[in-house]
């Protein structure tokens, strides 16, 4: 299946077979990357919001495939500070390069960019909306660890209300037949809108407050950070941030499956103890590393190299 010329704006835009195409390509990139696949191709990396991992892994991915990168980081020194619209900036830059990787604080910025220009636009995060390449790397991490995306029990823990990685991953799992378990305090549970969509899509899922209850059944536990910036009240944040704490003792006490793998989009705060790093369950560092082969696969696919 060809994804040549496609934009990557939202995980909603991808069918099961298209997701599988990305998984297979990422697997090939992890095993043996073709170093001249994108030789002579140019990627513009436009990051109007801070990012470390996403920007570095995109640029690394392009370099590893033999392509070149031009980049902007922050609005400083750009025409945006002179009052230029995002639409004009994108239209101009599209004439310089073969694809644009865009991070912008405004929701829907990448969708707008994709409608404006003919070259592929890859959304590297648009505010609280979508971060589809994070979702693809999460899917690839699960796929690579479990060799399937069907028939699994996947737990989501922490800030399920605001966490866009959780929303996107849950949405992507609508194409697969796994059971989703959402663990959070009521005030940070999965929004009803998304729960309604999962229900309409026939996804088997439940919402609970008890991590102990679900842990023994899980194949994957996806932890997220309680985001300080989401709370107006410092005391409420302090109360919430320590509400769940996964450590080696808890994993032992709840008799988790030996094959349980724990993921986290990082950075972590209190929710995941460093003593888990030494167990066979830790998958989050590999998850972060998978950003490069996954983004290599996406760049290779949309630029028509594979």
């Amino acid at each position, binding site marked *: 299946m060809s994804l040549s010329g496609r934009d990557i704006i939202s995980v909603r835009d991808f069918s099961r077979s298209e997701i599988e195409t990305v998984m297979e390509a990422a697997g090939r990139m992890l095993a043996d990357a073709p170093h001249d696949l994108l030789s002579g191709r140019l990627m513009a990396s436009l990051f109007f919001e801070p990012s470390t991992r996403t920007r570095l892994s995109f640029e690394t991915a392009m370099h590893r495939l033999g392509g070149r990168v031009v980049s902007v980081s922050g609005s400083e020194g750009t025409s945006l500070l002179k009052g230029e*619209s995002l639409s004009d900036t994108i239209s101009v830059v599209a004439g310089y390069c073969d694809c644009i990787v865009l991070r912008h604080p405004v929701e829907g910025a990448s*969708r707008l960019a994709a409608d404006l220009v003919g070259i592929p636009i890859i959304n590297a995060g648009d505010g609280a*909306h979508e971060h589809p390449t994070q979702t693809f790397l999460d899917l690839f991490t699960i796929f690579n660890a479990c060799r399937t995306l069907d028939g699994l029990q996947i737990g989501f823990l922490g800030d399920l209300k605001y966490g866009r990685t959780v929303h996107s991953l849950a949405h992507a799992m609508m194409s697969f037949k796994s059971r989703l378990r959402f663990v959070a305090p009521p005030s940070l549970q999965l929004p009803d809108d998304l729960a309604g969509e999962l229900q309409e899509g026939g996804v088997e899922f439940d919402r609970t407050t008890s991590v102990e209850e679900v842990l023994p059944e899980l194949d994957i536990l996806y932890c997220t950070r309680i985001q300080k910036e989401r709370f107006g009240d410092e005391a409420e944040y302090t109360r919430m941030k320590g509400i769940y704490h996964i450590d080696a003792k808890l994993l032992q006490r709840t008799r988790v499956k030996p094959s349980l793998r724990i993921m986290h989009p990082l950075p972590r705060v209190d929710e995941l103890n460093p003593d888990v790093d030494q167990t066979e369950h830790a998958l989050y560092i590999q998850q972060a590393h998978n950003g490069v082969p996954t983004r290599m696969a996406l760049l290779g696919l949309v630029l028509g190299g594979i």
Partner: protein
Amino acid sequence: MAAEKMRKREVSAIKDGTVIDHIDGKATFKVAALLKADSREHTVLVGANLSSRKIGRKGIIKIENTELTPDEVNRIALAAPDATLSIIKDYAVVMKRRIELPDVIEGIVKCFNPSCVSNHEKIQTRFIVVGRDPIRLRCYHCDRYETGDEIIL
């Protein structure tokens, strides 16, 4: 039947123009405002709080010598999805239909999400109609849902 005729007399007949009938009783003045009834070129007659066998209380708006644009019809569909639209020529109804929401609404609804790109760039808003009873819209740009009173026209 006689009662129906009486009600029609409550709002005078027009010779040529458009009649919007069966407006939900609570939405009459909202529809009138959406149609900018007080600043149009031609006469606009508004009947509110009329009794209706079908919907209890209803409104009716008659606009002389005017056919509504598709954009105006879409606005009415959002405020009064059960209304009917009739075209009048020489006092006779030459066309009557129920107002229907299109699948996509462009340039009418404002996204209530302040972080949506449609509130930052000079672009037309676009909403996908994902539910009709009650009306539920999804913003094409930021994917936020708007339902009922949240819909900003």
